């Protein structure tokens, strides 16, 4: 079974701190996606990483895809309360049409 393991499960930090969350698998993925979900809303796509070793930046968010395409990380610099949410990674499963999700990292940034 393909699984995406995310860590940590919960993260509570103060405004201005840096943080990194991880998405790991024993399987190779052709690409990985990162989403953020806020309470009462559906997940919203942040980025897709495709090439092993790729680094993508979205303002204060930096996404990296592992060289072997089995893992990815999301680094947030100088976190703000607006970054609070559930961060999910997702990848294409073995079955056609199966977009599988990790269990997410719940981030809370306190002012």
């Amino acid at each position, binding site marked *: 079974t393909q699984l995406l393991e995310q860590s940590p499960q919960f993260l509570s930090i103060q405004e201005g701190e840096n943080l990194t969350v991880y998405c790991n698998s024993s399987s190779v993925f052709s690409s990985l996606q990162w989403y953020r979900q806020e309470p009462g809303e*559906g997940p919203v796509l942040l980025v897709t990483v495709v090439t092993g070793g790729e680094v993508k930046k979205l303002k204060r968010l930096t996404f990296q895809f592992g060289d072997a395409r089995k893992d990815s990380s999301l680094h947030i610099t100088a976190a703000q309360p607006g970054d609070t949410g559930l961060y999910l990674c997702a990848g294409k499963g073995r079955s*056609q*049409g199966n*977009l599988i999700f990790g269990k997410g990292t719940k981030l809370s940034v306190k002012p």
Partner: protein
Amino acid sequence: DTAVSQTPKYLVTQMGNDKSIKCEQNLGHDTMYWYKQDSKKFLKIMFSYNNKELIINETVPNRFSPKSPDKAHLNLHINSLELGDSAVYFCASSQRPATEAFFGQGTRLTVV
């Protein structure tokens, strides 16, 4: 205009009832999905349709039946609702199977 819209947003119903959740996307996508998010926030795929054809049917009770009248719509009908069906159900769409997905706002189903 909302890209992926699902109704209703909240649904409270008694055990044993039958209910439907509707989903529409105006993005011109070929693929649509139903996901269930449990109390621990785990998003689990239930069904995936591509061009109105069912391509994924995960281990879901037969009481759940998706229907796709056209590429823009994917409805979910649930028979004989049980307490364990309480969850948030998300509809999503993507241009092709398992590519970047756009989600609806979710339907919070509470079975009492």
